[in-house]
């Protein structure tokens, strides 16, 4: 899901930076210092998760885990992904510095939307909790595919064509990340329920 350097027009790149900067600013004002460690640890999870290659489906895909981050972090998903993607760009040459804004927004925004869409389900019974987590994990990836296709569509590849390819390539990842999110949430609900307190905020 990382868009490479040079694939997008300057207008899209600047729009990406502007949106990411605005969202990161809002998120830093809202940040809860008590949850700083969770934010950092989940940023590490994302940073490493992108290295896990999933040999499924037609394309070459890897774990994204933006849904998992969005679920637990809410607005803090923006600074968290910004740092992780910056480090991936510098250390692994995934994506790049110029496209950092677009890449952060593409993955963080759907995760944030899913956080608000599904978080009320997490405080409910076990069944709803698992369903909510699965939805958040899977739909965040779908949303990221949609945003990436949109960014590419504004440049040259044509939105419909790229959306179709990216979406198809990520179907196995959507299911896998839904399952990962569901397992993580049900495990945490049993072992450390206090970590899920954000659902009542």
């Amino acid at each position, binding site marked *: *899901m*990382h*868009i*490479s*350097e*040079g*694939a*997008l027009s300057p207008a899209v790149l600047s729009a990406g930076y502007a949106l990411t900067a605005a969202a990161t600013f809002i998120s830093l004002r809202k940040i809860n*210092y008590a949850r*700083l*460690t*969770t*934010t*950092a*640890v*989940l*940023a*590490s*999870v994302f*940073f*490493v*998760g*992108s*290295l*896990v*290659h999933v*040999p499924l489906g037609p*394309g*070459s*895909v*890897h*774990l994204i885990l933006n849904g998992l981050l969005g679920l637990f972090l809410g607005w803090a998903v923006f600074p968290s992904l910004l*740092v*992780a993607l910056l*480090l*991936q760009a510098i*250390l*692994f*040459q*995934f994506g790049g510095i110029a496209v950092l804004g677009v890449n952060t927004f593409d993955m963080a925004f759907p995760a944030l939307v899913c956080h608000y869409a599904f978080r009320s389900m997490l405080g409910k019974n076990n069944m709803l909790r698992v369903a909510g987590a699965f939805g958040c994990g899977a739909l965040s990836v779908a949303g990221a595919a949609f945003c*990436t296709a949109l*960014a*590419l569509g504004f440049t040259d*590849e044509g939105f419909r064509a*790229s959306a179709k*390819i*990216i979406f198809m*390539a990520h179907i196995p990842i959507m299911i896998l990340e839904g399952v990962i999110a569901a397992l*993580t949430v049900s*495990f*945490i609900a049993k*072992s*450390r329920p206090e970590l899920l307190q954000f659902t009542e905020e």
Partner: protein
Amino acid sequence: MRYCSAIVTVLIALSGFSGESQAHKVNVFAYVDSDAIQVECYFTRSQKVRHGKLIVTDLSTGEKLLEGTTDERGLFRFQPDVAFCETGHGMNIVLNAGEGHQGNWEISPEELASLTPSGQNTGPRRAAQAAPDTVYSQVPGISGATIETVELEALIGKVMDAKLAPIKQRLARQENSGPDLRDIIGGIGWIIGLLGLATYMKYRR
């Protein structure tokens, strides 16, 4: 938090630090192979870029020289214009593999110089110019008596190209190598460092 740390550890283990893991990064590399330029494109060692669009441009002016598409094995081979190789400009090969995956590889003017008649005393082209009467079917060594210097140079050049091709390939691959354990641990270190910094700022206030 213990559980989250466990997740990070498991993910590091899963990632396996293999070439297989860098699926979202597309790699291009190109090298001069006898009288042509060989381009190889791949996502991972086993996953080649099939039908990827390639654009070759002049590195200095950005002018487009030619376009091409990779084959089923992620390969593309083209013969550069000799007149271009003589200009002393480099080449930039840009691969667009779709889905926003893009990569490039630069070929230096020095490398291209070996394709010019002046830089390539060893090339058959030069040999043909210098000795138009030479019949090539007469392999030197078998005909025995007199071996033209140009012929010998052409022969050595050819053998050297064949021998060096895998080494060039390996060097190019090494430049494209994926993240290693050091990078991964380093990145996590950075995140922990930033966490420390944020905590420090918070308590100083």
